[in-house]
């Protein structure tokens, strides 16, 4: 869990995820596939696909050791099937107003797979998730920049 110092570049590279090359290859591959198969579809659906590809490649390169990647992959896999809309429970009006925000709960919702773990593990997963996300964002930024330039 120690931050890996990948190269001598200083701070930005310190947070690089070690599997960034893998991530890059995965993502670019997916991009090409999407490009090929969905030339006629709308921007919206294509962007959704790209986003899903981004998360999938990120989760895949992170490996199965991480709870968040595992949960993310499972979620994505299930989404291939028709997404089932669960019936919403009727909201019961609570008498008292909850003033205090449970930040741990919010974090759990954000990080995939966060609901089933204790606080300590949640923090660990969050750290790894942040690292991967940052790497993915940087990767996508590079791709867009080079494409659009």
């Amino acid at each position, binding site marked *: *869990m*120690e*931050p890996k110092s*990948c*190269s001598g*570049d200083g701070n930005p*590279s310190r*947070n*690089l995820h*070690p599997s*960034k*090359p*893998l991530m*890059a*290859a*995965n993502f*670019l*591959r*997916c*991009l*090409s*596939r*999407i*490009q*090929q*198969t969905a*030339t006629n579809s709308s921007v*919206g659906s*294509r*962007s959704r*696909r*790209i986003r899903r*590809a*981004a998360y*999938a490649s990120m*989760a*895949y390169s992170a490996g199965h050791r991480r709870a968040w990647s595992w949960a993310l992959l499972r979620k994505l*896999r299930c989404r291939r099937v028709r997404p089932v809309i669960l019936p919403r429970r009727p909201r019961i009006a609570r008498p008292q107003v909850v003033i205090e925000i449970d*930040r*741990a709960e919010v*974090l759990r919702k*954000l990080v995939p797979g966060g609901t089933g773990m*204790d*606080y*300590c593990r949640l*923090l660990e997963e*969050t*750290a790894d*998730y*942040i690292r991967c*996300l*940052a790497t993915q964002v940087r*990767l996508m*930024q*590079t*791709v*867009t920049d*080079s*494409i*659009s330039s």
Partner: protein
Amino acid sequence: MQCLRAPLSDLSVLERQRPRVEWQQQGEEQSDYQPYDADYCMQSLLPVETAFRALHSCGGGVENENHGNVHGSNDCFSNAWPDIASGMHCPVVGAAASVEETSVNASSSSSSSRKRKSENTRRSKENSGSDGKDDINCKRLKEETGGGATPEAEQPTSKENDKAPKSDYIHVRARRGQATDSHSLAERVRRERISQRMKYLQDLVPGCSKITGKAGMLDEIINYVQSLQRQVEFLSMKLAAVNPIMDINIDSFFGGREINPTCKPGSISMIGMSSELLDQAYLQLGSLQHDMFMDSPALLLRPDVNPPAAVSDTSLGSCLNVSGSSVWNTNLQNVYGVEFQLGRGTALPFQSLQGNLLPNNPKMEM
């Protein structure tokens, strides 16, 4: 699972304690496995009351995630209780020990079983008000048993492992004046862990160094995660919008399996750009730690490579394929589903492809 034996003589107690003390001083940071030593646990007690408490606690649970053999030990202790009570030589032992070891043991079986669940450590944290000073590193000071700052000060609290290697125990040293019951110790260990992770997160999230306090930090972390996710959304939309322009064979970029032998004229620049893209992507990656990509950057960056696209295609493609090949492909296929139709490429078609590409290149470059 060792059951309690009858307590030994005093001399043996001291002898036994010394090496353990030394060990404890050395290897505090690691959670080592220790042979379960019920005797040691017993012998470092002072009066019988504390012995009683210790007996129950020694059999108890561990704060850890692996709660392997805790249940067994508890039963063992409760069975052996009558034997122990009769033959205790407490005072000599008590004088010798400043309790060197601390362990996590539940104070009662019921609470121990409750503690074993990892969820409940959180709840017990709210309940534990018994801590005195709340320092982060609790691994240095010995605890004075003579003065007895707290009534439970004499409790031995050594986390000991029994023979099974599966459960690992964390050895913690209690500070002076702090409660040594198992709950608070477990809490302390947990709090240390959490603070470690918070520090790591603080390094990770930019702009968090000034913020102190858990709530503010958590807020920042949440904001950062949300902003990163939003960025991914935004960039994917941007990519989707930009994509139509490059109507190439990015597949050729990947040493593609579906590559057309008839290269479109417009695709020349695209291919060049795509290899450039890959160059840039790789250059930005810092050190390429992954083995399989070690040679490809070298190939990519070589200026004298004649058809740079072709070489990069095949090299990258072959690299990609060599890695974990079929497993990777099928896994990815499962993940991406429709969008991701992987060719069943092995190295073989690439060689033929290379053969195809090279003669084509003069045509392309014309």
